[in-house]
């Protein structure tokens, strides 16, 4: 984990932005300031940050309804995120997608799929296309532990393995698929065990430790980029919030939350960089505070941003009106 100061601050900045963003989205949702579903990414920051900061600008990503963390790690401007959550023209999708689809296709983010496992084959295809066109771009597809049961997981792994697609399947195993515990639904015991029949190289990693994630991602991405082969990464993590804001979460043992919070990715990062003196608490607090302000500013800006013009209801259905 020997990283230079800028890199470390960059990681911290993204993680704190995500956390602050999600906290603010959560309180705004509770205060009825946001409409629609909000899927909180808190607790999983190390995964988006660790992986996405290892990608090149021209690599592909598919995300899910739980995409805020991925977008922020990809440096989608916070105002484009808040604009989207509020359905304004300033939103990253011009307000058409909302929170569940708040990703930036201009940054290679193909979608925040509202359909579980929907992005997997698409990512495999994007990865394959790059290769066929002589580019060494890779694709990363993010999904949850619950998504491995979809036929699409199986078909995508098969496709990627057979056609040598440089795609990295990243499972954020946060112990729940909605309210359903992973120990109930994951018969295989782990997601990496499910990669075996496809001959897909698979690794498990501590998803609460951005350095561990980053190292694993570096290896898998390089491997995919140079061999053109798919890989799977299972990052063990925890969803601090509910399935979405408003979920009462009565199915979570309270001690479980506390246990995982003790391994909080932000806390862990702080410890890992301050103990050896790579950064000071002051350095970190300053960035964290900046993130808080940026988030607050972005929410404030969105609230003042214009609503989309009625005419756009019918634009973007097709590229060409033929």
């Amino acid at each position, binding site marked *: 984990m020997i990283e230079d100061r800028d890199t470390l601050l960059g990681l911290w900045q993204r993680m704190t932005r995500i956390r602050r963003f999600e906290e603010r989205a959560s309180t705004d949702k509770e205060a009825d300031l946001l409409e629609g579903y909000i899927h909180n990414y808190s607790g999983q920051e190390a995964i988006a940050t660790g992986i996405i900061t290892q990608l090149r600008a021209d690599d592909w990503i598919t995300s899910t309804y739980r995409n805020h963390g991925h977008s922020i790690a990809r440096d989608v401007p916070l105002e484009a995120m808040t604009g989207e959550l509020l359905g304004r023209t300033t939103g990253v999708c011009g*307000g058409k997608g*909302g929170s569940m689809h708040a990703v930036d296709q201009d940054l290679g983010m193909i979608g925040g799929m*509202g359909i579980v496992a929907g992005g997997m084959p698409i990512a495999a295809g994007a990865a394959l296309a790059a290769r066929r066109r002589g580019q060494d771009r890779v694709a990363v597809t993010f999904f949850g532990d619950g998504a491995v049961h979809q036929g699409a997981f199986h078909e995508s792994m098969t496709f990627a393995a057979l056609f040598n697609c440089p795609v990295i399947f990243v499972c954020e195993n946060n112990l729940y698929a909605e*309210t359903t515990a992973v120990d*109930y639904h994951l018969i295989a015991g782990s997601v990496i065990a499910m990669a075996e029949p496809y001959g897909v190289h698979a690794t498990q990693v501590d998803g609460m430790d951005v350095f561990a994630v980053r190292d694993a991602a570096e290896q898998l991405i390089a491997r995919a980029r140079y061999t053109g082969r798919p890989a799977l990464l299972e990052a063990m993590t925890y969803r601090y919030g509910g399935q979405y804001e408003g*979920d009462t979460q009565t199915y979570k043992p309270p001690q479980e939350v506390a246990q995982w919070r003790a391994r909080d990715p932000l806390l862990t990062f702080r410890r890992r960089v301050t103990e050896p003196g790579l950064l000071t608490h002051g350095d970190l607090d300053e960035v964290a505070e900046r993130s808080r302000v940026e988030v607050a500013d972005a929410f404030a800006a969105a609230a003042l941003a214009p609503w989309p013009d*009625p005419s756009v209801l019918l634009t973007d259905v097709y590229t060409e009106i033929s």
Partner: protein
Amino acid sequence: MTRELTIKDALNEALRQAMEADDDVVLLGEDIAGGAGRDEAYPEAADAWGGPFGVTQGLLGQFGRDRVMDTPIAETGFVGASIGMAIAGMRPVPEIMYVDFIGTSFDQLLNHAAKLRYLYGGKVSVPMTVRTVTGAGFRAAGEHSQTLYSLYTHIPGLKVVAPATPYDAKGLLLAAIQDSDPVIFMEHKRLYMTTGHVPEEPYTIPLGTASIVRAGDDVTIIGVQKMVHTALEAATELEQQGISCEVIDPRSYSPLDTDTILTSIRRTGHLVVVDESHPRCSLATDISALAAEHAFHDLRGPVRMVTGTHSPVPFSPPLEDLYVPDVPRIVDAVRSTLDQGRKGAEAVAHGR
């Protein structure tokens, strides 16, 4: 004294009564109880959710996990399994959490549930009821707001039902579960909290019977699910303008009660169909075409369709509000068919 329930509670009561009456009725779906895997360690987990809208809440406590089955996110798996359970003598009620997700189990319904009886010469029945959630207006964006009624209605062998009131919700769900054929039972997410009278004892409403929710003389308005309510509002406004609207809720789209619909159109001479789904190959076109073929000589003005747009459902609230048919659009449509009816008549009178 009338007993008022929400549609959500009416559906819950229907499920409970169906399960009490028949041990072979079982529910399957993602998080339809909730907390699976936590029952032992943490008892409050059981029945944590009852599905995202709470429709199935409390049933686990009464019937246990063998009859309220929380499934993995594998719709082909559990919808397909439901078909097998139905054939083997049960009456499964799988839930597709949002109708938007139908693509992940579509083959099982299109080629198996719908066709097993016909292809194999009528030797088997598939008594299953697929519950699913429809509708826009929830700020849930393009992949959680569709209605897609017409995709199922096109398919012979399926029955398609969509209640708009608590009374109908209970009676139609009990009828669907007792029915020997596969029924797609569509619940509109924006109607769950709609209240109305619901008798406590079990009762059924025959599938394929429309409901005349408001009698009138000048125009027939067909409301599709939530649009029944919007049509009723429009009818109230139109009454003030001296226009008397008959509002019909087909309730069941397949089979469709063509008699009730055609009788009304023949009497009023004008038809407006209000359907929040996309316009092409929709229920709106289906009912319009019915009139154009079978009530043609009684129509005195163009058939008007008030529908969602040919676009995905947008998230942005003002855009979504434009997507969903509203009272002014219905009022305009009614006025325009009546106006054009007159114009048409004048044109005929003037020999054009």
